[in-house]
Every structure is written in structure tokens, then in C-alpha cells.
């Protein structure tokens, strides 16, 4: 046999091949290089490094909220919902209009002037978020009914094409001057930014005009808001998926649609609800993103949407904790590579990480390994 003659020639060669040394060596080299670069930066300037990590966390939590929509929809209908990023954009715009046109964030203090201002502000902000979430849900619900549902039995690619179409439509329809705007709009935050700094002496707030004390990491209330609201939303989702009837139906439908149907689950309804929930999260993410990077633009959904999608795949598409972990990795990867490697290359690095992870774990970090069935 050819195999035996070749292997007897060189035991070393066989060893190298069996252990996959060449391929793994390549991966290890890449990994070592990344670790080395990060370690060097960490030792040289730990403060800057931690600052980047905090920035990365802020970004990662926003990505996580978007990624949930991708992962839930993919889990249930196996559709890469390219329009999701644009739903996120719509959410940002709705919150923008909620704040600037409707002044929704101040409704409590204008109706009940005696209300404590902090509580009034929180209620107002929650109202704006809810408005964005509900609008996005309704939008996604409509999209699902109009563009995806009629294609449920068509080849999977048809729905993907309509998703791309919907994405184009939302972008360019939004770009019309009477809808949103073809230009960048500055987003006026509905609250003042307070910054804290953290160093060996503990946490203290940074007064305006005060220079950042050396050796300290700064973070703002934006960071706190993003992290807290993302975690709250994530916990809410976890509760919905684990403990409610709808959540159980969702999991059943994701596992096996025909059987779920036989068990009396209204699968079409559940799919719509999934789209709605995912979009609500995207809407909330849209507002948080707009607060963090105070600008809204009709194309703003594309790149965060794509990153969040990558995050969902990285974590194992279909898995909710996976989307969360993937998004945090993505946020760190983006910020750290922008800081330490090259800003323009950060998208390429994000995707390189994705490809490498997929080569090691073909279905993502938390993805169920697929077994070939014969």
C-alpha cells in the first residue's frame, strides 16, 4: 500500500503529520505573536491597556445586544438576517427623534415638576429606550411577515436575498431627506456626561476642566449605563427564554419545527415573536450606541451589525451565552487592535480572528459540534 511505504520511510514525518504540527504550529505562532504584543503593551503601559479594555467592554456590550438578535433568528429559522443591523440603525434614529423632537426624556419632570430629578431622568430614559424597542419590534415583525414568511418553504437562499433587499431598503429609504437624513446627525445625549477616574486611591469623579490624574483609568456614566442596561436586558432575555412559555416554545421550535408544531406550538407566531424580541434588543442597542458615539447616520448599522454578526458566529450561532461571549471578544479585539496594531486594519483583524476560531472550532466557541449522519 502506498501509505505504508511512505510512512515507513520516515517516522518523524508521520509524527509531524499525525500531530498536525505544521498547521497547529502556524496557529500557535499567530497566537503567540498576539499574546506577545498584548503582554508587551500591558507591561509597558498597564494604565493605557486597562483603559482600552474598558473601552472594549463598552463596545462589546453593545455588540452583545445586537448579536442576540442574529443568534436567536438564526437559531430558529437558519437565516442570516442581514437587515438586523439596519433595524439597529432605525432604533438609534427613533431614540434620536424621541430625545430631540418629542423631548421624551423630560416628560416626567414636565408633567410632575415635583418628582425627584434623578428618578425623573431615569424614567424618561427608559421611556425613550422602550419607544425604540417597541418601534423596532413592530418593524421587524412587519419585515418578517412581508419579506420572510412567504418564503418559509422556498430555498433558504431566497430569504437571504430578501434580507439583503430589506437591508438596502431600510438604508436608502432612511437616507431620503424626508425620512431620516442622508447626512451625519449629531446625537444630543439626554443627560450630562460625568467621568470618574479609578486609581490606587479609589474612585473619584472627574471635575470638568480637571486634568486626568496620572496612573488612573477613566470611565464615564455612559459606560455604566451601557453595561448595566445590557446586563439587565440580557438577564431579562435569559428569563424569557428559560422560564416563560414563549421561551420554551422558542427553544422547541429552534430544535425541531415540525415536532413543535405537532405539540401545539404556533411556530409561525413564535418565529415572529423571536424576530420581535431580537429587534427590541437591537433597538435598545441602537440607543446605547448612539449615546456612546454621539452620531446617527443611515449607514451606521452596517459595521456594528456585521461585527455583532461575527460575534454571534464566533460564540456559536444559535447560542445566547455564545453571542454574549463572542461580542465581548469582538469588542476587545476591535479596541485592542485599533490601539496596538493598526486602526484601519481592525475589521480585517476581527475577521481573521473569526476565521481562525472557526478553523479550530468549526461551529464557534459555544456551538454544538455537528456530527455527520449517514
Amino acid at each position, binding site marked *: 500500500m*502506498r*501509505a505504508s511505504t*511512505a*510512512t515507513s520511510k520516515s517516522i518523524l*514525518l508521520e509524527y*509531524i*503529520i*499525525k500531530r*498536525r*504540527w*505544521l*498547521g*497547529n*504550529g*502556524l*496557529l500557535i505562532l499567530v497566537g503567540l505573536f498576539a499574546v506577545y504584543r498584548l503582554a508587551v503593551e500591558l507591561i509597558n503601559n498597564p494604565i493605557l491597556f486597562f483603559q482600552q479594555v474598558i473601552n472594549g467592554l463598552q463596545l462589546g456590550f453593545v455588540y452583545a445586544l445586537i448579536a442576540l438578535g442574529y443568534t436567536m433568528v438564526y437559531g430558529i429559522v*437558519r437565516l*442570516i438576517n442581514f437587515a438586523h443591523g439596519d433595524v439597529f440603525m432605525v432604533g438609534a434614529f427613533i431614540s434620536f427623534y424621541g430625545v430631540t423632537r418629542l423631548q421624551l426624556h423630560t416628560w416626567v419632570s414636565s408633567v410632575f415638576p415635583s418628582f425627584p430629578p434623578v428618578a425623573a431622568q431615569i424614567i424618561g430614559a427608559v421611556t425613550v429606550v422602550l419607544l425604540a424597542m417597541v418601534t423596532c419590534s413592530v418593524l421587524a415583525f412587519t419585515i418578517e411577515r412581508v*419579506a420572510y414568511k412567504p*418564503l418559509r418553504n422556498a*430555498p433558504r*437562499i*431566497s430569504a437571504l*436575498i*430578501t434580507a*439583503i*433587499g*430589506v*437591508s*438596502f*431598503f431600510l*438604508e*436608502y*429609504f432612511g*437616507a*431620503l431627506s424626508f425620512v431620516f437624513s*442622508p447626512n451625519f446627525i449629531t446625537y444630543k445625549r439626554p443627560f450630562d456626561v460625568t467621568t470618574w477616574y479609578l486609581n490606587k486611591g479609589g474612585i473619584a469623579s472627574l471635575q470638568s476642566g480637571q486634568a486626568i490624574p496620572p496612573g488612573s483609568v477613566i470611565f464615564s456614566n455612559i459606560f455604566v449605563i451601557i453595561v448595566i442596561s445590557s446586563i439587565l436586558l440580557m438577564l431579562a432575555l435569559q428569563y424569557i427564554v428559560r422560564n416563560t412559555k414563549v421561551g420554551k416554545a422558542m427553544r422547541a421550535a429552534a430544535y425541531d419545527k415540525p415536532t413543535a408544531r405537532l405539540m401545539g406550538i404556533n411556530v409561525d407566531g413564535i418565529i415572529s415573536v423571536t424576530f420581535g424580541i431580537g429587534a427590541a434588543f437591537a433597538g435598545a442597542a441602537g440607543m446605547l450606541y448612539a449615546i456612546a458615539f454621539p452620531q446617527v447616520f443611515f449607514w451606521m448599522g*452596517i459595521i456594528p451589525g*456585521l461585527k455583532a*454578526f*461575527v460575534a454571534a*458566529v464566533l460564540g456559536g*450561532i444559535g447560542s445566547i451565552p455564545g453571542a454574549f461571549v463572542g461580542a465581548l471578544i469582538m469588542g476587545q479585539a476591535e479596541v485592542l487592535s485599533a490601539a496596538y496594531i*493598526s486602526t*484601519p*486594519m481592525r*475589521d*480585517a483583524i476581527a*475577521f*481573521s480572528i*473569526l*476565521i481562525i476560531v*472557526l*478553523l479550530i472550532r*468549526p*461551529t464557534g466557541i459555544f456551538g454544538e459540534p*455537528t456530527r*455527520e*449522519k*449517514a
Partner: protein
Amino acid sequence: MKKIQRGTLVFAIGAILVFAIIQVLLSLQILNSFWFTIIRIGAVMAIVSLGLNLIYGFNGQFSLGQWAFYAIGAYASADATYRWTQLHSALGVLVLLFAVVLSGVAILLIGRWVSRIRGMDALSQFALYLIATVLLVWVAVLLGKALDASVTAFLASLPKNVSLQIVFFVCIILAGLLAAEVSFLFGLPVLTLGSDYFGIATLGLTIIVKVLLDNSDTMLGFPEMKGARGMIGIPKITTWFWVFTFLILAIVITRNLLLSSYGRAIISVREDEIAAKAMGIDIAFYKTLTFVIGSFFAGVAGALYAHINGFLHPNTFNFIKSFDPLIIVVFGGLGSVTGTVAASFAWALVLEGFLRLWLPEGFETWRFVVYPLLLLIMMLLKPNGLLGNYEIAYLRNLIPPLRNKNENQTPPPPPLTVATDTQEVKS
């Protein structure tokens, strides 16, 4: 004497007629440069989409990376012709030539060696090929520099137009081969991924290539590509003749490949991977083969595209545009060559032509509002594509009639108990 089938004859005559009519219309200036560009873009898209249809429609590998290879072909060929026309140096062509040929030979040799020692995983093979190609590209640069002066002198001695056409033709082929080799390297590890994951990884490639092109002047070391500012000064030499020739070649190659044992093996991978494996088909080989051929088409198309407007910008190659060939392939009907070609021209005419002309003044921005709406309506009405499985006679898989029963002496064996002459069957 070989009997030429009627379908082939009709196809050949049709092709010549289409070529002649458009050429005459162009010469008589009935088709202005606006429509001329659109027709050429339609043909270029047809070549790209044919490649994608091979990969996705026939081999079942959901790829979003076609656009990356298109970009590679466009920029590689543009750089070489730019150096020839603007810098009067054949260095670009020579380096490209040596790099492509040397790595091509290396890939074939290593491929043979790897298949002999067996059992090597895709990633290790990738590492091996990567080392070899990187070394050989370096060698190619040295060789190119050494031979630059003499080859430049030789080409310059030819009439100007002839030398330009030679350089252009060589560049188109090399661009295709370069794209094919890159796709081989990339596809080797990535083709082991499952369908959607493969699509996502190839989408990643598109984005990586786009980012690299954005920084081509700073990070890749090609100042003439001018990074995100866009490359200018590429000779505008893509004529109707070149586009049409390559389109016809692409159609014929696709058809001849598909209507053969190799084509059937390629299609069987789409139909059922496990069954194909169990039938003795090396699915990894056929996936790579199809991916490489499809990318070759993309590279050729990229080279043709680069020389239409004489201007290249990385934004042309961003991932949003990478859906265009996918849209075309799905519209034309997955697995229909006729449909792909028709849809490419329809796409170019509608999106680049009619939508630009018909929208009233003040409504120009509505082009991309109407386009997705058209997309949605078409998709909802015809989820299987415009032409479904339809093929023109030339491209159809003809089932030869059964031989005459009397001529063929095997008796029908319904009771299935008599052993007949097995020689013929067993071979």
C-alpha cells in the same frame, strides 16, 4: 467526422451574431458610451456570476468571497498595466508572471507530494503551501527585476498598440490565475467548514481584502494603488471584443466541465455529500477544484473590469457589493448557466441603466430604494429564480436515447435469476 450538434451550432451562430450586432452598433455610434459601459459591465458580471454559480449553484458551497477574488484580479492586472503604460516598465507583468507560474508549479508539486504521503490535515497543507508561495513570490520579485530591462526593451520594440494588447491579454490570464491560487490557499483550510460557516469565512475574506486595498499604499507597499483614494491612470483598453471573448470562453468552459464526469462529481457534492463520498468521490478535491475555477473566472472578470473605467476604488469591492453576484445567481436560477448570463445583463441594464435614466429629476437617490423593492418583489414572485432550471439547447444535459433493443442482445431479466453476460457490465 464529428457530427456537430444543432444546439452547438445555434449557440455559435448566435454568439457571432450578438457580437457582430453590438460591434456594428458601437462602430456606428448608435450605442453611446453610457450603454457601452453597461453592456461591458453586464458581461463582466456574467463572468463573475458564472464562477459563483459553479461554486454555489453547482457545487453547493455558499460563498461570499467571489468579490474578493474579483478585487484581487482587478488590482493585480491594473497594477501591471499601469506600470507598463505609465512607468514604461514590464516589471509588474514580469513579477506577476513569475509569481503566478512559480507558485502554480509549486502548488502542483506539493499537491502531488501531499496526496502521496496522505493523512495531512488541511491546515498543515495550508502552512506548507503558504511557506512555499511566500518564498517563491520573493524569488519572483528578484527574477522580475533581473529580467525587467530586457523584456521592456523587447516589448517596446513592438508597435505600441500590439505590445499593449499583449500585456493586457497576459495580465487578464495572470489575474485569473492569481485569483485562482489565492482561492486555493484560502479554500484549503476553509472549505472544511460547514456551509454557512464557509459563507461567513469567505465574507471575512472579502472584508479583509477590502481593508488591505484601503491601505494598499501604506501597508502593502503599492503607492500607485493610492489606497482609499482610488487608483487612477489605468489604461482603458477593455473592448467589446475582449469582454465578449472571455464571456464566451467562460460559458464554454463551464458547460464543458459540467457536462462531463467531472461536472457530475461536482454536482453530486451539492446533492448529497455523504452519498458522494460513499460513491468514491473525493469531495475535498472537487470542492477545491470548483472554488479555484470559480475564482479564476472572478479574477479574469476583475481584470476586465479594471480596464473599463480606468479607475479603481476599494469601495467598489466592499462586502455590500459582494452580494451582487449572489443576487444575480439566485435571480438567474441556481444551477442555470443561461439564467446567470441573462440575469447579469438584466441586472446591469436595470440597476446601472434604466434606474439611472428613468428616475425623474430630484429622485436620483431613489435608485437604491426602488432596486431593493424590485428585488423583494421578484424574489417573492419567483423564489426559484427567473429561469429556474431552464437552459438553452447548447447547455442542456442531453440524455442519449437508449440503444436499439435488438442491437443490444441483453434480454430483460425481470425474474432476476438468470445470470447474463456480465462482461459488459463489470468491465
